[in-house]
């Protein structure tokens, strides 16, 4: 569903990602973890065509991103940084426009169903600008998922969510994966990730450095050890090349 082959991209100033190679299959939840600035959001932007690889190829549904037919994007749902929602519109209006933009005709994607699923009924007719951060995030998730996408890309989706909403999100992702969706999700909450992810990709300084074993008991410790080992290996390599 989503494939990266040696994908690299550098921003002006040097930051970026290098030689990213991975694949996500239908029914699989893959988590992306790493420190702030590791390149997780850049990877997701590359996956969604927001930036084009300078090297390598990113594919969705088997096709390179620059050759993907428009209609194929209707099978993708994403939430990167800011929800697709406008402050002057109500929650229901925002969900309706998200449905329209994802290829749904009038009523094709159930806005009412989405309001119910994401427990948005009490704020459904409230303008987006008047919502709390958590409610905004739930609107963003509803807007990204209400058209039942087969490929889901979510950047730190549990941000600002209360514990009940985190459980709701977890249930939604697990259920959608069981229905065959491929899911890429970044997170800082290792315990949360361990509960739902089939695989955890570790990212450090713009590179994928392997997978994190999620069967262990102390995930945080394992995570920091891997990051530290990678940093040490990198500084040794840099030292040797000087």
């Amino acid at each position, binding site marked *: 569903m989503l494939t990266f082959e040696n994908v690299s991209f550098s921003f002006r100033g040097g930051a970026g990602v290098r030689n990213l190679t991975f694949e996500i299959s239908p029914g699989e939840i893959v988590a992306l973890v790493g420190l702030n600035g590791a390149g997780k959001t850049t990877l997701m932007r590359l996956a969604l065509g927001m930036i084009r690889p300078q090297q390598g190829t990113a594919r969705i549904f088997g096709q390179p991103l620059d050759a993907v037919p428009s209609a194929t994007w209707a099978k*993708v749902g994403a939430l*990167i940084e800011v929800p*697709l929602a*406008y402050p002057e519109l109500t929650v229901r*209006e925002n969900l309706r426009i998200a449905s329209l933009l994802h*290829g749904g005709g009038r009523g094709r994607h159930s806005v009412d169903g989405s309001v119910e699923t994401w427990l948005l009924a009490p704020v459904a007719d409230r303008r987006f600008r008047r919502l709390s951060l958590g409610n905004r995030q739930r609107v963003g998730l509803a807007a990204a998922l209400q058209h039942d996408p087969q490929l889901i890309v979510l950047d730190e989706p549990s941000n600002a969510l209360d514990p009940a909403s985190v459980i709701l999100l977890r249930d939604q992702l697990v259920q959608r994966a069981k229905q065959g969706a491929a899911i890429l999700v970044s997170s800082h909450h290792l315990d949360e990730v361990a509960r739902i992810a089939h695989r955890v990709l570790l990212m450090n300084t713009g590179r994928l450095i392997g997978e994190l074993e999620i069967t262990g008991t102390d995930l945080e410790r394992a995570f920091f050890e891997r990051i530290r080992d990678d940093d040490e290996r990198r500084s040794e390599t840099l030292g040797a090349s000087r």
Partner: protein
Amino acid sequence: MNAAIRVEAQKLVRSPVGVIGSLALVAGTLALLGGITAALASGNPELTAKVGVAATLDWDGLLAGAAQITSAGALLGFGVVLSWMFGREFADGTITGLFALPVSRARIALAKLAVYAVWAVAVSVLLTVGILALGLTLNYGAPSAETWAALGRQTVLTILTAAVAAPVAWVATLTRSLLAAVGGAIALAIVAQVGALAGAGGWMPLAAPALWAMSNGTAANPMQLALTVAFSAAFVGLTCASWARLQLNR
């Protein structure tokens, strides 16, 4: 495309920017015209000297004043609304949600411009109807054939003024900044005024519609007005192309 147009129309209709922009362009212009008329009626000699051909208390004076206000003020008003329609996506961060959709970004940009065009025509017609009502209220009598023609030119002037604001959509896209686009709108208004004063004449796309409307249609020929339309169309094309190639790489 229909989906994008419906979405953009809803965003403009529900936004305070759309409502305030419409009010400023229609009610603001009419209020200014009413104020100028009242000052002229009271015999203010300074104002009489300043407004030139608009200094007469009849249809000709009213329409000359309307054309003057439209050529400067409306360009700024239309420019600000168009800046907001494009620049807000970057300012609000919603641009990320406009990727990975079955509706291409070029179509979204075109939908924004189409909605802007329909809104601008509606505002132009409303303004002309308002000027007609103002003239009738001021007892200028039933409009003559010349007055109807001047009212027609006023409508076309307002529509073309909206059209020449098109570069701000491109500026908003290139700079990804709402404020830079508003700055672009101000720059356009200044260039149009300075160009007209410097005698650039009808071959200057920004000034041609105003020169045409204020001269009873004699100071700019159809070719020169067509150049104004081509100027706008070029920036529509540039804006759509920029949206199609847009990358969030900075």
